[in-house]
């Protein structure tokens, strides 16, 4: 209800700024904009004043200067002589790493719990709802700290593995669960290992081809070819054969207690595990609820209709219930991923060097460039969340049920 172009042709009066629907909204918007600009200007002016008083300025030059500190977990080459920018990149990758691992694990646990909450087994149902209620009603920070505390207080430290009658020993002589993290053997690729890897990749391609072929066979000839066991066989057998034929080119490097720590093998730091695990179980509690709601949202009539067409329960699940449930589940699932990513900034509580730990932590402190660092930090998270919501919109539009 705003503009009438024709009837009133009288001259403009000031009161029309408030009383005339044509101008009123301009007036309001102008006032709002003015207030906003004034507010911004006021804050900006304060900033300038305060910076001047403290003799500081805003500059991003520090990003190019050597960071000077070391980071324990780096996915890209980094030394204390690398720049603050590189340190931030290490942080970005660490954030993405824990977020990625967390999303996967949270999905697995969450889907399992959500499905089990609908199980017809009473005890399991009760256990699962206890799990969900306990985990989502306690702050995730508490879970992170508890898991970290378990590492510090309960698990044996490397020194406990030392000596002849050590208090702790390695599992299968290959895996060590220590208070500092988890050590496991790492593969070493010897000559000829390329062939094994290639065979393995080929058999994965083979699995896809097999499934493709099976669908085709069903569609074209009405022949139902089993895929599960052949896929499993295809997954393992060719690679194992190749492994022995090539003379076992891939060896394992076992972690070994040398000096202060275990050396060799793959090391997963306690801070990463604590953060990863806590974020996963916390988020999984929410995902479980989404999954449950999604499955319940598919009406019983759908299952019955499918059953009365002669379909077996697992087919009904795959062909009828899941495709519909997923549309309901995926949007909240993605926002849970987003939450998990944002919550990963709590890394700082256990000293995991994600972006909040590097750029927002040590760099900020050592350089004193608080404003600059926090602006960059926020930009990073903002970018992630914008990207994720854009993806979500694309998905929502793609799967929207067609309506009249």
């Amino acid at each position: 209800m705003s503009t009438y172009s024709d009837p009133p042709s009288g001259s403009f009066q000031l009161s029309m700024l408030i009383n005339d629907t044509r101008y009123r909204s301009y007036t309001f918007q102008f006032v709002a904009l003015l207030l906003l600009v004034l507010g911004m200007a006021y804050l900006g002016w304060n900033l300038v004043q305060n910076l001047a008083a403290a003799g500081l300025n805003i500059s991003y030059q520090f990003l190019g200067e050597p960071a000077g500190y070391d980071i324990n977990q780096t996915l890209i080459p980094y030394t204390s002589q690398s720049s603050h920018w590189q340190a931030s990149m290490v942080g970005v990758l660490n954030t993405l790493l824990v977020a990625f691992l967390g999303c996967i694990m949270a999905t697995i646990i969450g889907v399992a719990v959500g499905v089990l909450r609908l199980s017809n087994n009473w005890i399991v149902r009760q256990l699962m709802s206890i799990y969900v209620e306990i985990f989502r009603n306690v702050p995730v920070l508490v879970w992170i700290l508890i898991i970290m505390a378990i590492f510090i207080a309960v698990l044996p430290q490397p020194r406990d593995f030392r000596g002849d009658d050590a208090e702790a020993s390695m599992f299968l002589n290959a895996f060590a669960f220590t208070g500092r993290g988890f050590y496991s053997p790492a593969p070493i690729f010897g000559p000829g290992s390329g062939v094994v890897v290639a065979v393995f990749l080929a058999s994965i391609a083979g699995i896809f081809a097999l499934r493709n072929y099976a669908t085709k066979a069903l569609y074209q000839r009405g022949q139902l070819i089993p895929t599960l066991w052949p896929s499993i066989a295809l997954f393992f057998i060719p690679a194992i054969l190749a492994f022995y034929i090539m003379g076992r080119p891939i060896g394992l490097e076992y972690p070994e207690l040398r000096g202060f720590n275990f050396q060799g093998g793959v090391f997963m730091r306690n801070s990463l595990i604590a953060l990863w695990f806590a974020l996963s179980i916390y988020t999984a509690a929410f995902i479980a609820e989404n999954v449950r709601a999604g499955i319940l949202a598919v009406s019983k009539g759908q299952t019955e209709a499918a059953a009365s067409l002669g379909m077996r329960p697992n087919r009904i699940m795959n062909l009828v219930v899941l495709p519909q449930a997923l549309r309901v589940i995926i949007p909240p699932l993605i926002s849970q991923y987003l939450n998990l990513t944002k919550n990963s900034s709590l890394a700082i509580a256990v000293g995991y060097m994600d972006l909040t730990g590097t750029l927002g932590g040590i760099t900020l402190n050592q350089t004193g460039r608080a404003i600059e660092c926090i602006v960059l930090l926020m930009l990073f998270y903002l970018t992630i969340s914008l990207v994720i919501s854009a993806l979500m919109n694309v998905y929502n539009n793609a799967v929207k049920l067609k309506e009249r």
Partner: protein
Amino acid sequence: MAEQAQELTVSDEVAIQINNMNKWYGSFHVLRDIDLTVYRGERIVIAGPSGSGKSTLIRCINALEEHQKGSITVDGTLLSSDLKNIDRIRSEVGMVFQHFNLFPHLTILENCTLAPIWVRKTPKKEAEDIAMHFLTKVKIPDQANKYPGQLSGGQQQRVAIARSLCMRPRIMLFDEPTSALDPEMIKEVLDTMVELAEEGMTMLCVTHEMGFARQVANRVIFMDAGQIVEQNEPEEFFNNPQNERTKLFLSQILGH
């Protein structure tokens, strides 16, 4: 026409045999001592007040609900907890629900071909031909590539019928197929069902459409409180009900 249909198709072969069947929900006795023989080609209409167990009865036939006492034999197969038997019976018996229960994420055509492909292992091409055949029969071949949400209620119910037919059932069960529809649409669906009846399909139909019952049924069964209270040929049933409850019910239904 009704007379003609009756004479034409009923054979002596038994399609469904229910003996002394009882069912409880918890301790609530929903179906009591049901005895019923349906011959091949028969069209039976089941009527009765709400909660009398009509839906439960036909859902038992399809093993959507299990019964606790007595026996149900469909097409010579005894309905037991054996999965094989259940599967066999379900593929013999088609069912149409009150709320259509089409799969909203699949097109009309996919709705119709899903079960033939995955259960009957019909090649896709062939399944589509069959589906188009039945869609043509229910007069909506042109909607094949739309989604259920894009159709009217009457069209959706006709798709549901076509979907059942694609499995080539020998028996069709209908549970109030028209009660969720607007008046204009009821007719389209009933027409489809009449056509089906004329082809000799064995049908059990829960409905309150007495016109339909008169036109196509061989037999009307009246249920109350989980029991079969009265059964008779339609004309007799409507004109000369015997049981008090039947009379009361008919006076309500027809007066309305």
